[in-house]
C-alpha cells in the first residue's frame, strides 16, 4: 500500500530550525554517562579499598568471593582464570549495569546522546537506515524485566548492608556496638534512591498491575500499581540521583579506606 504519496525529504545531520540549545541536553547526558562508566569500570577493576569498617561499597555488593569479611563464599575461587585480574565487583556489577542499559529511560537518553538517533527532537540524523528496537540487536532490550528481578534482589542485599553499617567493631570490648557514621547515611540514602529508581521501573509498574485492565476489586494490586506509577512519574530523576549516589558511595568508602577522608561518627 503506497500510503505516503509524496516522497518526503530527509534533513541532513544536525539540520534543524530550532533556535534553542538543543545540543545541550544530549551533550550533558553524554558527559555524565561517560564519566560514570569510566569511574565505575576503574573502580570495579581496583579490587581494593572497597570496604571501610562496617561499610561495603555498593559496586562490590554482594561480595560473592573476596578477601573482606563481607564475602559470602570465602576468598577468590581457584577456578578464576589466571590471566584475568580478580575483583569481586566484576562478578556482580554487570547485572545492575545491564538493568540500567536496558532501562526505558536510559535507552531513550543514550540513543540520543551516544547514537544521535535522533540527536535531539526534530534535529536531522546522521544515518538514513533505521531499525529501532524492532529487530536484532536492539530487540534484546525486551528482556529488561529479567534484570529488574535481579535488581530487586540487589536492593535487598544493599538494604542489609545498611543494617550492617550500623554496627561498628569496638576493639576495646571486642564487640560490635550500634552506631551511625556519615558512611551509614551515605549507604542509606543510596538505598532509598536506588529503591525509588527500581520500584518505579516501567517493567515493575507493568508486572505489578499494569498488565491488568481492571484493578477494581483488587485493593492490594491497585495500591502497589499506584505506588509504582507514582515513582515512575519521576523515573528520570530517580535514575540520575541513584546513579550519582551509587558512585558517590563507592568513592566515599574508597577515600575513607585510603585514609584521604575521615568517616565522622554521628552516634
Amino acid at each position, binding site marked *: 500500500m503506497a500510503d505516503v504519496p509524496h516522497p*518526503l525529504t530527509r534533513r541532513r545531520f544536525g539540520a534543524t530550525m530550532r533556535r534553542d540549545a538543543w545540543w545541550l541536553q544530549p551533550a550533558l547526558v553524554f558527559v555524565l554517562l561517560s564519566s560514570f562508566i569510566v569511574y565505575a569500570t576503574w573502580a570495579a577493576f581496583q579490587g581494593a579499598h572497597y570496604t571501610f569498617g562496617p561499610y561495603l561499597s555498593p559496586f562490590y555488593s554482594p561480595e560473592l568471593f573476596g578477601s573482606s569479611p563481607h564475602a559470602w563464599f570465602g576468598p577468590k575461587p581457584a577456578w578464576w582464570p589466571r590471566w584475568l585480574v580478580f575483583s569481586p565487583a566484576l562478578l556482580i556489577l554487570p547485572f545492575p549495569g545491564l538493568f540500567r542499559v536496558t532501562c526505558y529511560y536510559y535507552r531513550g537518553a543514550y*540513543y540520543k546522546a551516544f547514537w544521535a538517533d535522533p540527536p535531539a*527532537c526534530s534535529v536531522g*540524523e546522521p544515518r538514513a537506515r533505521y531499525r*529501532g528496537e524492532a529487530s536484532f540487536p536492539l530487540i534484546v532490550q525486551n528482556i529488561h524485566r529479567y534484570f529488574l528481578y535481579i535488581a530487586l534482589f540487589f536492593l535487598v542485599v544493599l538494604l542489609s548492608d545498611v543494617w550492617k553499617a550500623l554496627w561498628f567493631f569496638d576493639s576495646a570490648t571486642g564487640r560490635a556496638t550500634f552506631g551511625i557514621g556519615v558512611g551509614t547515611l551515605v549507604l542509606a540514602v543510596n538505598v532509598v534512591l536506588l529503591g525509588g529508581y527500581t520500584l518505579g521501573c516501567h517493567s515493575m509498574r*507493568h508486572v505489578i498491575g499494569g498488565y491488568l*485492565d*481492571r484493578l477494581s476489586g483488587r485493593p492490594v494490586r491497585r495500591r502497589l500499581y499506584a505506588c509504582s506509577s507514582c515513582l515512575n512519574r519521576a523515573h528520570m530523576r530517580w535514575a540520575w540521583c541513584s546513579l550519582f549516589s551509587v558512585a558517590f558511595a563507592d568513592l566515599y568508602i574508597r577515600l575513607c579506606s585510603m585514609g584521604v577522608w575521615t568517616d565522622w561518627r554521628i552516634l
Partner: protein
Amino acid sequence: MTDTLKPDLAETGAVEETEPPRPHAEPQGSATFRVWRGDRSGGRFVDYRTAVSPGMVVLDAVHQIQAEQANDLAVRWNCKAGKCGSCSAEVNGQPKLMCMTRLSELPLDQPVTVEPMRSFPPIKDLVTDVSWNFRVKTRIAPFTPRPPDAPDGTWRIAQSDVDRVQEFRKCIECFLCQDVCHVLRDHHLHEEFIGPRFLVYVAALEMHPLDTGDRVEALRRAHGIGYCNITKCCTKVCPEHITITDNAIIPLKERVVDQFFDPLGKLLKVFSRREQP
C-alpha cells in the same frame, strides 16, 4: 487563558498543569515572520513584517499576513482554541499548534519561522496532507466490548478502571506527535510504523476495561511498535499533555514482551490462576 485540563480528565498527578512559558515581554511594534511558501514541487521561506500586539498568537500573525500581504497564503485552522487540532505547524523548528503559541513565548528580535509539518507531504504553504493518518486508523482492530452486563444491554465499569484510558481520549488528532517522531519524520517508515498518535489510540482500546480485542500481535508486527526507541519527543510536543511514551507506548511494549519475550512469565501464568486481563 490558562492551559489547564478539565479535572475529571486529568489523571491525578500525572499531568503537570502549568501556565505556558512567557520568557519574553508581551509583543509590541512589529515582527518578522519567515513563512514557508510552496507546494509538492518545492518551496522557500518568505519574510513578512507585520504589526504585533499583546496577547497575539502565531495564528493571528499568519492571518494578519494573509489579510494584508499574502491573500493566497494557505493555512488550515478551525477553533482557535487548541481543540480542533487543525493548525499544526512548526514554529521556530518546534511542532506547535499555531493558535496556542503566544508571541510572548518567542524571541521577536529574530524572524519567527513558520513551516508546515515535515512528516507529511505539503499541499500548499502551511497545509499538509495528513490523510495517511486516517488510513492508518482503519487498520487498527476496533473496540470490541464484552457482552452486556445487564439485560437492558448496558455495562457496569468502575470509574477507577476507565480512569487509565481517559487520558488517551483527550487526543485532538493534531498529529504533532507524528510530525516530531523521527521514525516518520527522518526515516519515513510510514508503511511499517503507525506512529505515537495511533499507539495512543491502541492503548485506549487495549487497556479499556470492556474491550476484549487483542492487538498485541499486531502491535509487534503490523503496527511496528519496536521502531519506537522511546525518545519521548512525542510526549514533549503533545498539546493535550498526554503522557504518550510512559503511559501508552511503554505499557504496550511491556504487553508485547508478555506475549513474545518472557518465557518465564508465560510459564508462571500456566501454573498460577489465569488472570483476566
